[in-house]
């Protein structure tokens, strides 16, 4: 594709902090290269704002290569923008044309309060992980990989779930603000492997309880999360989580 340049109108959510009310502000950026990433376009805009003595727009980002899950923009009515299986930082400006108006909003969910502008507080996810998204082991030398035989397709399914980068797009996409796709990925990847076995029941029970405490909604299987997830986490993980939860709640002692 031949590179081209474009002028864009941006409608961006601005909000000082979680206590104040926010509003949309209109901006114009000019001469943007189609080879830039979406975040680079925001860098250009921010430099422009700083030059004009305005407050630059706050947004989350870190790796800028689609692996950390920090970036989080809801672009033109879809988390992470128009492309499939893609993060905001990996969205490139060739997705847009000269003269387009682009609406950029933060993740919307009461469990993800806005910190400033487009940056939201996703520590609720950290607390869900702390409730059980790990295995308790004594650290020491790494064991020989071959000492634990795991069927190839089981390992593949587990790794596919482990791809989740905790970005929160699933919550942002869900009409119920449910964190089930994220939670189900975290529960599935450990439930499928022998290492996750000993804490299998307590893990799912505690993580679901924490998710509810954080104020995420209940899943109604609409599939919006799967459709927008940058790592293509499958909806079948949610069904697996339901099975894990059902089994654990019936059989867990205490």
């Amino acid at each position, binding site marked *: 594709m031949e590179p081209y340049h474009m002028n864009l109108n941006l409608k961006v959510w601005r909000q000082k902090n979680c206590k104040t009310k926010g509003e*949309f502000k209109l901006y114009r950026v000019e001469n943007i290269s189609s080879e830039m990433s979406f975040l680079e376009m925001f860098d250009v805009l921010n430099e422009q704002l700083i030059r004009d003595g305005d407050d630059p727009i706050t947004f989350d980002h870190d790796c800028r290569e689609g692996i950390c899950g920090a970036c989080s923009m809801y672009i033109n009515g879809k988390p992470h923008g128009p492309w499939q299986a893609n993060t905001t930082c990996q969205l490139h400006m060739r997705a847009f044309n000269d003269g387009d108006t682009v609406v950029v909003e933060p993740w*919307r969910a*009461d469990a993800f309060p806005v910190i400033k502008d487009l940056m939201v507080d996703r520590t609720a996810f950290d607390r869900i992980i702390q409730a059980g998204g790990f295995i308790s082991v004594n650290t020491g030398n790494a064991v020989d990989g071959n000492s634990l035989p795991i069927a190839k397709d089981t390992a593949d399914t587990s790794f596919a779930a482990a791809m989740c980068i905790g970005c929160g797009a699933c919550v942002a996409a869900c009409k119920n*603000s449910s964190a089930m796709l994220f939670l189900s990925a975290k529960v599935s990847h450990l439930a499928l492997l022998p290492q996750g076995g000993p804490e299998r029941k307590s893990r799912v029970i505690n993580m*679901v309880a924490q998710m509810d405490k954080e*104020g995420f909604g209940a899943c*109604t299987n609409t599939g919006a*999360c799967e*459709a927008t997830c940058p790592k293509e986490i499958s909806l079948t993980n949610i069904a697996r989580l339901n*099975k894990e939860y059902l089994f654990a709640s019936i059989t867990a002692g205490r």
Partner: protein
Amino acid sequence: MTWKQVFTSSVGKKLVMGLTGIFLILFLMVHAGLNACIWAGDGGEMFNKGAHFMGNNWVPRILELGLFAGILLHIIQGFLLTVENRKKRTIGYEVSYNEGSKWYSRSMGLLGTLILLFLVLHLSHFWLPNRSNQGFLLGEEINLYKKMKLEFSVLWVVIVYVVGCISLGYHLAHGFQSAFRTLGVHNRRYNTMLISLGYGFAIIISLLFALMPVSFYLGWVE
């Protein structure tokens, strides 16, 4: 963990929706099967026999109580879930995200409400007059076939019934497969099967039910 914790958790609440949903799906099959007797071409004889069994025998009458309990649980829990879920996003989006999911999967609350409104009318047409005639015990029933013929001679009633059936069809199109997912069916093979089965069931059931008032109105049955 206590049972209370299980059934008040977000996953537990969905379990209740799924279990009652599957129970209601089973009921729909029985209901549609029995009602299909109107097409036996015998002036309603077979249909009234079936209705007599359902209304004048303690076994189906006790099961009927279970049915009401199931429907109520499904309605109340569904209502609470819809309200609670809506509260989780105080500030909505400027541009909403609609491509990722089917409209009817996002509108289960609305479709459920339409079905409930239809149900009120439906019960007041048949169930209520019949049971009150019976003194709510095992008394004399009314001729339900005749009653159908009478009610379904009115155009607006037929239209409301057809709209009710369409709502039911879309509710099932999502509800059928979703119920099984909620119960933990996660194998891709079964899920693909359940999705097709769900669509098939939704279409057949809603079509069958919708054809009943239409058949009477257009005089396809005597």
